[in-house]
């Protein structure tokens, strides 16, 4: 019973408050305001008042359907003899269908501030500066929509003065690009074997994902339509070193968003077989049947499947088991220098070889040739840093030149010892290379040795963006920073935003302060690229969302949200528990 009384008392209080408050509010309502057409034939004489119009936002920018537009009609000067003066806004000139609502506009508030809203507002006094504000909702239909201002007054004569029009371009708001997040592998990860590229592609509001494509080093490796993508990648198919994994999502409006990570592939690949010809020795004179033997060392985990013995392209023997040997019938060849090449192939089709020069001398008239021995590097060596090529040469005649060739390209020539050349590993591309040292005597007779080495060289710089740390909306001034693992030193590091260079630095820390207000709201691509001293580059890229429009006062909004949420939680719990107690009270017959 007491409860009912309390509720009734509360309702009565609300009613009393309404009865008192509403008239106070409506006191400001100006009687005589109304919906009023442009009525270009109603008033014929030009008023002495000056009238202008302005708007927010400006008409220079397109607005979205349903956007809020504020219009001010400003009047100045004075009118004499008028019985009433008013300002109005209209969507067109003419005597009919000129109300803003006729063109899809909705007036949210008018200068009177009252609950009943009109396009025409009567004002007093009839002199001085006046500014009348209407707040409108833009039409949903795209295209151009105009608003006109007009001052009308009547009395001894009906006057008018026009302003505007303000023509707005209503356009659909562009839908944001898809947001791609690669959850695995992480940027700068070192990977091997089979990996799975996983993550999510989220379309912007109002769009849907139509395809998700995986690219590795720019080449497409897979595609799906699932927003939660998972691509299996066998890194054995990639060379050891840095690779860029990029996932590109395309939505139903052909808008694309992407994220890239750079990973380093480090598969334990067995080294190529190493061949060492034991007999005959380089430059040796041979006659008749010659036993050619070699030792072969397979890479770790590999086995030798085939060893071939050749002069030129002709195989004169082969072997599949230790000791690897074959017999050369030198009588089948003309006297003179010949190259014997022994090539070994392992079970992974990796090859290694050594070539020596022998002088076939069955007639006894063959000349001596310069004998070259490459001391460093060893045949089959894996080179990761700059190195020296060192050779020894013995000759019965004076030497005219000793030349170093790598991959057929001359690297230098010497006429006297020591025969040592410094080679910058960065000048060689990763992969196998043939090193050849050729000596020529004064009779133009040449002798050489050739070995095979493998260059892994350095990897490209690896960039990891430390901040921003996550996708999401950013506003105000933010710090963009990156950690760069240099390959061959660092030449410079560049920060690009939406493809435009914003800042660069030649030394760590690579950190920049960026004001997001300088960029349009929406998805923004942050790219940090590092270039090393040999020109190799690595980069990391991420898409972040900038939202300055909605976050002008994040602290205040956050505080307001916390207060509102906390109060509503407390209210909810109080209501729930009170409702339960009422229910129990009733069922249990009171306490």
């Amino acid at each position, binding site marked *: 019973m007491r409860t009912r009384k309390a509720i009734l008392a509360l309702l009565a209080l609300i009613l009393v408050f309404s009865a008192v408050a509403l008239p106070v509010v409506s006191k400001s309502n100006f009687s005589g305001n109304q919906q009023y057409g442009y009525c270009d034939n109603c008033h014929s004489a030009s008023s002495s008042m000056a009238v202008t119009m302005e708007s927010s936002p400006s008409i220079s920018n397109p607005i979205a359907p349903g956007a809020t537009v504020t219009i001010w009609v400003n009047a100045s000067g004075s009118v004499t003899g008028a019985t009433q003066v008013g300002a109005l806004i209209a969507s067109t000139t003419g005597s009919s269908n000129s109300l803003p609502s006729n063109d899809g506009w909705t007036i949210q508030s008018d200068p009177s501030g009252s609950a009943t809203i009109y396009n025409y507002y009567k004002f007093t006094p009839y002199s001085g500066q006046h500014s009348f504000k209407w707040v409108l909702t833009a039409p949903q239909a795209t295209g151009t929509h105009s608003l006109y201002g007009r001052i009308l007054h009547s009395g001894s004569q009906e006057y008018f003065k026009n302003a505007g029009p303000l023509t707005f371009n209503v356009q659909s708001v562009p839908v944001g690009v898809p947001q791609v997040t690669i959850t695995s592998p992480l940027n700068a990860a070192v990977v091997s074997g089979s990996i799975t590229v996983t993550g999510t592609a989220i379309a912007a509001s109002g769009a849907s994902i139509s395809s998700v494509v995986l690219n590795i080093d720019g080449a497409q490796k897979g595609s799906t339509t699932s927003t939660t993508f998972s691509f299996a990648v066998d890194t054995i198919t990639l060379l050891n070193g840095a690779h860029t994994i990029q996932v590109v999502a395309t939505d139903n409006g052909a808008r694309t968003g992407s994220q890239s990570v750079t990973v380093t592939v480090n598969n334990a690949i067995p080294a190529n077989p190493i061949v060492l010809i034991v007999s005959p020795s380089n430059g040796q004179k041979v006659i008749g049947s010659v036993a050619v033997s070699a030792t072969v060392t397979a890479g770790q985990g590999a086995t030798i499947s085939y060893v071939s013995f050749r002069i030129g392209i002709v195989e004169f023997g082969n072997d599949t088991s230790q000791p690897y040997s074959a017999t050369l019938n030198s009588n089948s060849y003309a006297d003179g220098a010949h190259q014997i090449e022994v090539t070994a192939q392992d079970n992974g089709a990796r090859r290694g070889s050594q070539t020596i020069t022998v002088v076939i001398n069955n007639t006894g008239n063959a000349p001596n040739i310069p004998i070259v021995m490459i001391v460093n590097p060893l045949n089959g060596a894996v080179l990761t840093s700059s190195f020296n090529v060192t050779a020894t040469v013995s000759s019965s005649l004076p030497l005219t030149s000793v030349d170093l060739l790598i991959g057929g390209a001359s690297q230098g020539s010497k006429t006297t010892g020591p025969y040592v050349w410094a080679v910058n590993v960065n000048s060689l591309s990763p992969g196998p290379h043939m090193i050849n040292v050729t000596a020529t005597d004064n009779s133009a007779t040449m002798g050489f040795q050739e070995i095979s080495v493998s260059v892994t060289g350095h990897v490209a710089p690896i960039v990891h963006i430390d901040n921003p740390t*996550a996708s999401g909306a950013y506003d105000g001034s933010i710090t963009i920073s990156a950690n760069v693992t240099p390959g061959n030193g660092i030449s410079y590091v560049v920060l690009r935003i939406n493809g435009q260079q914003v800042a660069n630095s030649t030394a760590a820390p690579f950190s920049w302060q960026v004001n997001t207000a300088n960029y349009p709201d929406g998805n923004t691509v942050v790219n940090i690229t590092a270039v090393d001293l040999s020109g190799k580059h690595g980069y990391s890229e991420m898409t972040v969302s900038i939202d300055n429009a909605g976050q002008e006062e994040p602290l205040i909004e956050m505080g307001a949200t916390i207060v509102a949420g*906390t109060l509503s939680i407390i209210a909810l719990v109080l209501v729930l528990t009170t409702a339960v107690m009422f229910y129990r009270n009733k069922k249990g017959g009171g306490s």
Partner: protein
Amino acid sequence: MVGWESIHSLTAEMHGGILTLAAVCIILTALAQIVMHFQQSMPKSIVKAAMRARGYLDATGYVAVVAGVFALLLSAFTGSQAWPMDALLDNAVVRNKIVLTVFATTLWAMVASVRWRFGRPLWTCPSMAACYTVLAIVAMGITSTAGSLGAHLTKGESILDFVWNLVGVNVLQDLLLSMDLALIISIISLIVIIAVLVIRRLSGISQEQLGQRKCTKWSKWDEPIIGEEKVAKK
């Protein structure tokens, strides 16, 4: 030297663990009460286990809720130290995490206050027990969501991502209210709070106590007391 990031990881794990324990205990207590309601058609072993466990579960849940609220506050403090203050509001995810953490703390505090206000007898009333359990579940959900945002900030991913993908929610987007809406919600909530407190006062239920005599008509529930099976044997 141990950094604030490490300390925050520690406290976050602590409040996560304590509050998970609280939620699990409250849910299990509710299940035990349901078993007690249907005890005639339940295997005796299950009824006995429910009877034996519910007293401990309720007490543990209560203690864990209170401890969890303090752990949440501690976590909030260490979190504020771990993140650079000048960049605290740069990131919408951080803002969302702060908001959700406050909501979670408030809700857990309300769970604790409901248990404190009504005591063990709240379990004798199905409606109040349901209210208490649902509040704990919702609070746990908000706590988990805040934790998921923390995982996104530190690891870029969360174990709950599949849930967000499933329901199509992007928790990384800013959830702050507009000033107008926040003001309206605040005013309405304040009016509701004042009105409810006035009604409670006027109707005389502000001092109302729950108990078996009042609430057991349908549920036949009694209070979950530690060691009650021994009492029952006697």
